[in-house]
């Protein structure tokens, strides 16, 4: 399922890329409240012909392998997701943003003892935050998000926490 999802995201990104005027790429730092840092990369695309440059499409990958699990016994878990965001006040330096993320979560428990536990899940999370455009090509985003599907260890992975915040630093190409 993960491979299919990744391929889908890749082709979608390629198709949008041929029309996009604004491409930004950078680093995303994400923290679940009360739990892990899961960091990674973000690519975002927008086009002035689509909703007057207010719509942002993004692809993101974050992982505890690049966060809390570096040189530690923390569980290695990965998240890959697409985001659809809307910029408010698009000409201003401080822009409120609302986003919806859809993706996939996978945890690696590293032992067959735990094969009985759920370790993957669909990811759906709204985010609310701000985008700061300063200096000209540098973008900074800060937002609070909520994983609608979160884990109780019975039906969903126990390490998928509900509330997270993230900050992303992007370079606009």
């Amino acid at each position, binding site marked *: 399922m993960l491979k299919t999802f990744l391929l889908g995201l890749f082709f979608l990104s390629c198709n949008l890329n041929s029309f996009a005027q604004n491409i930004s790429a950078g680093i995303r730092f994400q923290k679940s409240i009360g739990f892990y840092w899961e960091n990674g990369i973000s690519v975002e695309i927008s086009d002035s012909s689509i909703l007057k440059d207010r719509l942002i499409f993004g692809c993101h990958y974050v992982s505890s392998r690049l966060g809390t699990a570096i040189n530690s*016994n923390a569980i290695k878990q990965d998240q890959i997701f697409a985001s659809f965001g809307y910029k408010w006040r698009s000409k201003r330096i401080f822009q409120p943003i609302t986003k919806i993320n859809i993706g996939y979560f996978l945890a690696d428990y590293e032992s067959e*003892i*735990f094969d009985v536990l759920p370790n993957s899940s669909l990811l759906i999370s709204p985010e609310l935050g701000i985008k700061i455009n300063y200096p000209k090509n540098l973008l900074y985003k800060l937002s609070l998000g909520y994983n609608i599907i979160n884990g*109780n260890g*019975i039906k969903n992975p126990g390490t998928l926490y509900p*509330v997270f915040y993230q900050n992303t630093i992007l370079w606009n190409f």
Partner: protein
Amino acid sequence: MEFLKKGIYLVLFCNFFLGCSDPEISDTTLDGELIFDPSIYDPGTYLVSKSKPLPKTYELDKPVFIACHGYSASTFEWNEFKDWANGDTSYFISQVLLGGHGRSYEDFKRATWKDWLIPIKTEYEGLITAGYTNINFVGSSTSCALITELISEGYFIGKLSPNNFFYIDPIVIPSNKTLSLVGVVGPMLGYAEVDNNKDEDLYWYHFRPQETLQELNKLIILVRKNLEVGIKLPKESKMKVYKSIKDGSADPVSAVLLYKGITTSGNQNIEVEMVNSELHVFTRLALRENLSNLDMANQSKCFTELISKSK
């Protein structure tokens, strides 16, 4: 009039952000001022260090279990293990009452997780002083986190190494992830109410002050971070974790964190068994409804194994 408006806004603000007042406590529950854990009146029945402070020479190497209960519970949680012995004197069981527990809502509210820990240390040190040489810890739920913290902080260094650490449904990650937000939500709510039946209200607190939930959250975050760094058991000590695969209180993934985070002094993995159970603390069956044959078999198998592994 202006002053009155400001006053009303202040009251609303305080109620919203600083929490409601404490709940109405009934004296027919453990939360009240009339019902207490019986180990408070009669420690000799519950603690081996009190009932047998001068063991005979042939008793010194008999297994002694220090049985520790979970958050908001009492010594009742381990009564069935004691009853299961059924007169067998080849081992002894101490039932420890955690600090701040088994008394009243106010006592529970005031206690920190470090207070919860004190009676565990006191009993262990009492048994060592008495000369016992085969000491085994068996903890349920939050007690497992407390014992893990003891190991992590080096408490057992320079002391007699326990023979075994047995964890029943340990909590490192809660099943209900709202606990992670207790720092914000807790003061607004003041307390959480639990859906106990009337009998359970005699042995578990009915109300959980938000202060105690904050303490629980602090403890399990600390334990999780120590597990990420890595924890070594005392020399020659062994550990086995028994974890229900469906647990509404202690997330089953807690077992993964313990397995990854703790090694024996010889750098071996600890033992973990994922138990086919939907109960939190599957070894306690009393006062539960709709028990299955599997539930009873799980309890029996676990108790049998605790005894055999300790000898």
